[in-house]
């Protein structure tokens, strides 16, 4: 277990900049050992950067560049996260993917992708003929010619993943420092000093998991190994009443710009359409664009026309931390006692736990003495997915705590009991979006028509903002 530090202590064995899924996973991994750990993020919540806005697929790594670091970490991360999700109660569904070919070229490509999957160590793919394809997905638009099935591609709850890592790290003694932006870093012989808007923190070892800003942090050390280009991915989420239209993740045959536009169920019982892929210069450009939304609707209409008749409940955009290199940019700068974790572009959710192991090993080679390994405190994350029994359907739970039968957010069927529990959890939500990531409240079809005011009042009473 991590070394517990007194509240006033500002010097740590390891500091991690960035509490996205990657930084949180690293904090959790290091929390197994006798280290004092500081996890810092500029935002008011963990996982509030790119980690909150992705397509939430647990990737097998079948289409990675064989032999790359990403290939290795995605396939290892897949197994680790799958087991972890089972252990702590993160929702996932083993729906599998179908890579749908819409023209002869794509059809011919399927067998090449199958070979690539084997080169990546994934052997379970198989070709699906056109009739079998439409039998599996009767609402698929017309014109598909066949598919490659990748049964191991699953969907997972991305929000609870980051939250679970951070919660477990915190329960093990790591210090989570939110609302804290690292503005400058200075070095002395044995310590890094992080100058932040909340004063100074010191650390013997430093991990840069700053996502889109990993190049900016690197620049503090004078490193120019890569430049992060935010690659925007816009997404649309359709109403739960659309869920029965689709059973698998429907992937396009990949192109060089990314994985292309997919239609996928979500563990929350919605259907997702997206993402786009567009290189930008502004690292804050998470707005959606008129052109992007029109493009998605056009693509969606081809992949699954019936989907477009359903209501859209959410639209958002995530920024992939793309670099000029095709692979993850993870490197140890031993003399500086510093590890950069950059370029975690489109697979960071899946790879997170494997990245964390890798970073742990890099820190050890640079001389960090981890001390004894211990067990982390067991945690349990409230399951937000539709595959389990939600609280409003759990008669025993309601009998014990009637507020679990009091639905506040009607569209997502979130009860007061769940909201109350989130408010007193180890990492409580500070705004409506954060509460949404913990409970799904206000994320449904009415977009607050019914419950916005009530949820806002609950948050304001608990000391949060709107």
């Amino acid at each position: 277990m991590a070394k517990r530090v007194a509240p006033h202590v500002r010097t740590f064995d390891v500091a991690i900049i960035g509490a996205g899924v990657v930084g949180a996973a690293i904090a959790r991994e290091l929390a197994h050992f006798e280290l004092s750990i500081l996890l810092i993020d500029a935002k008011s919540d963990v996982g509030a950067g790119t980690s909150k806005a992705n397509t939430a697929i647990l990737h097998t790594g079948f289409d990675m560049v064989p032999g790359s670091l990403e290939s290795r970490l995605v396939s290892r991360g897949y197994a680790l996260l799958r087991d972890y999700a089972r252990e702590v109660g993160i929702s996932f569904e083993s729906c599998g993917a179908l890579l749908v070919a819409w023209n002869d070229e794509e059809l011919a490509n399927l067998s090449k992708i199958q070979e690539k999957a084997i080169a990546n160590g994934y052997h379970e793919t198989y070709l699906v003929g056109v009739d079998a394809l439409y039998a599996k997905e009767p609402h698929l638009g017309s014109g598909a010619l066949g598919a490659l099935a990748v049964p191991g591609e699953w969907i997972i709850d991305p929000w609870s993943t980051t939250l679970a890592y951070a919660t477990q790290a915190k329960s093990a003694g790591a210090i989570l420092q939110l609302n804290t932006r690292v503005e400058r870093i200075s070095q002395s012989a044995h310590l890094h000093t992080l100058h932040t808007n909340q004063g100074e923190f010191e650390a013997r070892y430093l991990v840069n998991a700053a996502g889109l800003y990993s190049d900016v942090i690197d620049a503090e050390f004078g490193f120019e190994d890569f430049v992060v280009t935010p690659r925007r991915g816009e997404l649309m989420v359709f109403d739960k009443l659309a869920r029965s239209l689709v059973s698998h993740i429907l992937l396009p045959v990949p192109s060089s710009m990314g994985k292309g536009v997919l239609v996928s169920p979500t563990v929350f019982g919605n259907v997702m359409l997206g993402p786009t892929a567009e290189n930008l210069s502004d690292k804050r450009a998470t707005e959606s664009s008129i052109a992007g939304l029109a493009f998605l609707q056009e693509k969606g209409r081809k992949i699954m026309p019936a989907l477009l008749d359903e209501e859209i409940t959410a639209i958002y955009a995530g920024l992939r931390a793309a670099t000029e290199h095709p692979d993850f940019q993870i490197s140890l700068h031993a003399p500086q006692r510093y590890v950069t974790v950059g370029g975690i572009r489109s697979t960071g959710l899946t790879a997170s736990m494997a990245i964390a192991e890798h970073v742990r090993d890099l820190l050890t080679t640079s001389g960090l003495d981890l001390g004894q390994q211990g067990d982390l405190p067991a945690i349990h994350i409230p399951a937000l997915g539709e595959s389990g029994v939600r609280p409003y359907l759990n008669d025993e739970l309601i009998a014990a705590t009637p507020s679990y039968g009091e639905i506040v957010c009607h569209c997502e069927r979130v009860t007061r009991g769940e909201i109350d529990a989130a408010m007193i959890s180890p990492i409580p939500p500070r705004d409506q979006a954060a509460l949404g990531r913990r409970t799904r409240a206000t994320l449904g079809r009415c977009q607050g028509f019914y419950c916005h005011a009530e949820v806002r009042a609950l948050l304001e009473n608990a000391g949060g903002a709107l």
Partner: protein
Amino acid sequence: MKVSGVDLLIVGAGPAGLAAAIAAKQSGLSRVRVIEREREAGGVPRHSFHTGYGMRDLHRVMNGPRYAARYISHTLDSGAEISTSTTAIDWVGERTIALTSPRGLEEVTADRIILATGARERGRNARVVAGTRPAGIYTTGSLQQSVYLRHQEIGSRAVIIGAEHVSFSAVMTLAHANVETVAMLTSEAHHQSYFPLHWGTALRYRYSLRTKTELLEILGRDRVSGVRVLTPRGEEVIECDTVVFSADWIPDHELARRGGLQMSDVTKSPIVNHLHETSRAGVYAIGNLLLPIKSADQCALEGSSLLSKNW
């Protein structure tokens, strides 16, 4: 889990559902139960504090909460039961519905079921509006609850999207919260309300109605800072800190669809005959669940006349 039975189960305690309950009791049905998922019955009028309710059914005009209170007390006087904080979650039989509430799960079987689940305004995402996702975005429904039920801080300058009856209700609600309405936008050539209503509110509250104007994008990071619009003269940014999406109704049809009732492609409401019967025997639909949108008194009259027509 509890199991129960009634003669008539009504889902939704808005004007339509409550009026139907009263009429059902008056026509002699003995066990009539209304299910309402909110803590209080009354439906939308519960949080609609401006005047304009009751003309056709109660023959006097009053504000929404008063109107709702009238219907609630009439319903209780009639001997019908209202179960609040109770959600009808799904069908478990032809005319059996599963409920959840702080008292636990329950399955109710009824001879007849009336769906009166109402309609809501489409929000920003459902209208596929591009831009940032800052605080300060409402529908008229959520705005009214924030202002009247919770007295929450709103902002200072608002733009209203849509120019139907309900949009004028948004103007009045904003004024009550000391928020200036700077513009009301509609992509149509005219507003879609009564002229007196428009002229009255426009004169009193001094906003500009911008016809043939389309909302392109929402601006602002943490808080709305404006909207980019397309007018006949070109693009323009209107500065504001609040955006209210009004009208553009969608029926709350989840239960109807989960039950596999036949639905209209156009209105997305269940299809009913002149007796308000849906495609399933013994299951009826009334009120704003059946679009186009109606005023509360029309919904209530639909609820009360259902019984005289049918049973």
